[in-house]
């Protein structure tokens, strides 16, 4: 049982870390600010989500797990809104900023 949970943690956290890497590659390769914003929001949010998912079995108790999930929700929600603000700034100035 413990081993199964550990395997779950290792695979989910690894997947999350890979998404962070992919997000960075996107920031490096994408041609303009707005496409880079896509990379930052969607990929990194998924990365954090997978890391949180992987850490859930390692927390003590239901509420510890809930705390991690609520941090992820907070990041996801504010990230979704802040990204639109930055995107609006980019659009008003033209894509090259």
């Amino acid at each position, binding site marked *: 049982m413990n081993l199964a949970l550990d395997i779950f943690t290792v695979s989910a956290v690894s997947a999350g870390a890979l998404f*962070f890497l992919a997000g*960075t590659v996107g920031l490096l390769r994408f041609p303009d600010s707005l496409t880079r914003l896509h990379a930052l*929001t969607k990929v990194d949010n998924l990365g954090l989500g997978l890391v949180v998912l992987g*850490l859930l079995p390692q927390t003590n108790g239901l509420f510890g797990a809930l705390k991690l999930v609520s*941090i992820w929700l907070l990041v996801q929600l504010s990230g979704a809104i*802040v990204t639109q603000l930055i995107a609006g700034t*980019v659009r*008003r100035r033209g894509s*090259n900023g």
Partner: protein
Amino acid sequence: MISFLLGAAGFVLMTVALALVVILRRPAEVDHMMAAQLLGTGGGAILLLLATATETPPIVDVALLLALFASFAAVAFVRSAPGQESEV
């Protein structure tokens, strides 16, 4: 398990560092504004991994504040970006 979580934290730190270098070296100011958001997600992931690896639950609170203030900082950046006041 502990060394795996630490390794993962180190890996995420490396990707965040690379992304910061990429973002802050670009000339466009809007790219710089993404830095705070990057630390909200990446820094949050690093702290949560550290909290579990070192079994120190209060570190989770640091991640919480980091998330809150990263988005606050991003709003402040957008608000005070140069050229904003000319568009009222």
